């Protein structure tokens, strides 16, 4: 009736031990239904025909990814070398010929810088008009 598990001390809270014993005695008269023969087989046959609607597996945390420190250095090394080479060559001026003339200023004369609007030619026009 109680499957070998005595829960009496738990359930009799609020009633006397005598009352609890009486209840136990009366309920002991109740029928104990037996599982119909073949019930488990019938259930398993039904289970065999029923597809599982959701096969959701328990979540397992992913294993920790391997440390990437070596890979990170492998990437950073050529970048650092490229930066150092650029600074070195830039300071030597070896590759200045490859730079745009607008930056180096080699092809830009001071005249053109001073008279970008053509005002310097005004005298010429003035003298021609006087003549």
């Amino acid at each position, binding site marked *: 009736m109680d499957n070998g598990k005595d*829960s009496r001390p738990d359930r009799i809270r609020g009633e006397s031990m005598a009352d609890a014993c*009486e209840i*136990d005695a009366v309920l002991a008269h*109740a029928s104990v239904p037996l599982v119909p023969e073949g019930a*488990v087989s019938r259930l398993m046959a039904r*289970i065999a025909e029923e597809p599982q*609607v959701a096969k959701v597996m328990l979540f397992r945390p992913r294993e920790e990814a391997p440390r990437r420190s070596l890979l990170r250095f492998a990437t950073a090394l050529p970048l650092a070398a490229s930066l150092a080479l650029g600074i070195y060559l830039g300071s030597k001026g070896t590759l200045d010929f490859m730079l745009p003339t607008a930056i180096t200023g080699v092809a830009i004369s001071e005249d053109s810088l001073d008279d970008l609007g053509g005002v310097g030619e005004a005298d010429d026009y003035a003298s021609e008009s006087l003549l």
Partner: protein
Amino acid sequence: MTRDATAFQQMTDAGLLEAAAAGSHAAFTEIVTRHFQPVYRLVWRMTGGAADAEDVAQDAFVTLWKNPSQLREGAALRGWLMRVAANAVIDGSRRPRPAALDDASEVADPQMMPDAPLDRTQAARLVDSRIAALPERQRLALSLVYFEGLSNIEAAAAMEVSVDALESLLARARRSLKESLSAEWRDLVGGLTETGQ
């Protein structure tokens, strides 16, 4: 018995549930072997011994099989199955049908034969019929605690009520039983003493 079956017998409910979720019929067979009997007994009492008690108990297991992952804690498997089965009984489409036991109680009712002593069969039918006449939730609480041996905490969890509420249901069930069996109470209590049970 296969080696797999032996291995499953040694697994916990949580392990079996995980294997069943992966589609293992053998694991689910072990779950059924462990828990079908108490679930069936509960449904039988809740339905008052109705003929479809087996179907209702089966439905609880089929519900579990279809989606084992809906049960988060394998340790609470039995309580979960009982709750699903009890809800199915309480559900409107499956109202308890205590007619069979009511009929039996008429046969066993000692008020019809005041001087006749109760024999064992009559006593069983009488007590069964009075239990079947209890309100559903009182009957469920009584069945879980007295007949299936769940602790108050386990039964409260299965019924999704507080422990205080469960104890209140139990107290009312005991009081109702004592009132409905008042005429035969002494015989039922004394009868056990005489038979040494």
